[in-house]
């Protein structure tokens, strides 16, 4: 994947004619396998833009910083990232007319974090892996679902087998086995909140985990507080996760967060579906669990 030249052309055009105030894309870091988010604000900065095989970050998350502003923003999105934009629009986080969406079809990207790790000496590897990022092997949406301008040829999804197969296995476990399983996953969490920060669906202005009056979730790295953090985070993702896989990718202790997210995706689909978050933007349409009606079923209360 390499859209660098085309995106530079578009960025220069948009900045020059004043159509946008900034262009969210990527630039190269220090190392060949390091591509990092970059915002170009002037035509001079356009030459720094790259969009290459390491452009993995879901940039839609960065729009949140500008939600209270008036700037017009051009943003480059892959298929998975574009679903994040739909989510932000559905949640009224940013107005559609402030955005110029440059969609790129994606045949999979590599993970700079994995490459950094494997080349750094912090991981024992025979030979660094050079293939697609783990999250891309199970790609559902390689083509952008919303855009003003589209680059690239249509791609076919790579996610083959049933993405809920592992969930079904875990559902079959006994309650005790399941507890042990999740205990082993969450006991290693260091509570750095990278999963929350990388997530476009986590767009609450004040996060429950930052609340102090009252403090809903304790700050100890104990199994109970860790469980509380992860279960609350996951529940809040119900109907919102767009499966961009960024949470799992950035986790410094390799917690398989998508496993938990997928359980919620499956449940929402079964209870309210068929439903896939962020697949299509229809103005005024609300996703499941985001509206209140007086006749909502409440027999579980």
């Amino acid at each position, binding site marked *: 994947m390499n859209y660098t030249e085309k995106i530079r052309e578009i960025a220069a055009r948009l900045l020059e004619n004043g159509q946008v105030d900034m262009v969210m894309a990527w630039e190269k*870091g*220090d*190392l060949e396998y*390091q*591509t*990092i*988010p*970059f*915002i170009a604000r002037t035509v001079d900065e356009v030459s720094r833009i790259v969009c290459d095989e390491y452009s993995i*970050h879901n940039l839609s*998350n*960065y729009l949140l*910083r500008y939600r209270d502003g008036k700037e017009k923003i051009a943003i480059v999105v892959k298929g998975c990232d574009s679903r994040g934009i739909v989510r932000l629009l559905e949640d009224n986080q940013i107005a559609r007319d402030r955005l110029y969406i440059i969609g790129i079809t994606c045949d999979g990207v590599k993970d*700079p*974090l994995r490459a*950094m*790790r494997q*080349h*750094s*000496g*912090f*991981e*024992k590897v025979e030979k660094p892996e050079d293939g697609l990022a783990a999250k891309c092997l199970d790609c559902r949406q390689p083509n952008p679902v919303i855009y003003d301008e589209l680059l690239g040829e249509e791609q076919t999804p790579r996610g083959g087998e049933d993405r809920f197969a592992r969930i079904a296995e875990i559902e079959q476990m006994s309650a005790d086995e399941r507890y042990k399983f999740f205990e082993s996953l969450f006991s*290693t969490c*260091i*509570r*750095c*909140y*990278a999963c*929350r*920060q*990388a997530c476009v669906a986590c767009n609450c202005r004040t996060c429950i985990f*930052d609340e*102090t009056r009252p*403090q809903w979730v*304790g*700050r*100890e*790295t*104990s199994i109970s507080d860790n469980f509380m953090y992860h279960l609350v985070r996951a529940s809040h993702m119900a109907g919102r996760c767009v499966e961009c896989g*960024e949470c799992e*990718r*950035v986790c*410094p*202790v*390799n917690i398989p967060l998508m496993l938990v997210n997928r359980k919620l995706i499956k449940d929402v689909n079964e209870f309210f579906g068929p439903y896939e978050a962020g697949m299509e933007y229809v103005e005024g349409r609300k996703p499941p669990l985001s509206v209140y009606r007086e006749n909502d079923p409440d027999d579980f209360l």
Partner: protein
Amino acid sequence: MKVLKFGKIEQVLDRLAQQAEVYVPMLRGQQTGFYSWNTYDEGYDDLMFDILNVYQSPKHVILPQTEMMYRFRQEGQDVIIDAEAQEITPKIIMGIRSCDVRGIEHLDAVFLTKGYVDEFYKARRDKITIIANACYNPGTNCFCASMGVNPTDPEAADIIMREVEVGYVWDVKTEKGQAVTKQIEDLLEEEEVELFPLKRFLRKVDYEGVAEKLKDMFDDPMWEKYSEPCQTCGICTYLCPTCYCFDIQVKTWGEEGYRFRCWDSCMYREYTQMAGGHNPREAAKERFRNRFLHKLQFFTERYGQPLCTGCGRCVVVCPGGVNIIKIIDTVKEAKTGA
């Protein structure tokens, strides 16, 4: 020279673990960090003295991420405080690299000097013996030498292990080190061996004068620019061997509870949230700037050295690709404040 042969490492660990909790670098599941040898599971864990470094530094051995301070309960009109210190077991950190030893030296400066001694810290620190693993082969993102660390001769080490062809040269530095060596003396062998030469550093940075220059760079546009990719998560602060900020919090159930301290991160909103609702570091830029000014200016002003040991962890793990080397370079090249 006294040499610990590769084949005898596990015997040494077993022996030492009888007297102390021994923390060693391991691969546990998919994570690398310092874990107690007593919890080593042959089928699941891998001992990793031969890796450059592990993700999670041994900082938590001296400064646990969560630490109980005291319990309390109400009885009638009285509040009973149970402040009895928990029993601290002797601990050995074995296989720690120079960068992380420097991290401990910094923690010592913070918690034990300048007129205040943190009792919780001191109780742990006094019972810790450091067996360092000299580093002759710096990694892609290592720059410890540029931050004043000697990769092969860590200052605060009680013993230094030096990897050679057949094992490790056992280089005892302090009395604490001698005491530990006594327990395993029969497992060491006398042998003349040749040490490896220190390989070249791939990364270099010039910190000279940076703290001074930063005084005039509080409003520099670089903070805006470099903080843009920062997601304000706490990975860098929690994996850093020197970040020591903590919070003191409380948990209560009915009439009893306990107070504990836990790591905090300057990258979190809650860190500077004030009682009246104001937050002086609302956005990424302010938090980001504070983190680097603390590391590169404030700490140097107070303790004479930067709060960075060049271990390279933050460079490797940052999801946004934030790079402290680039920040130092930028300050170095800046015209302002010169």
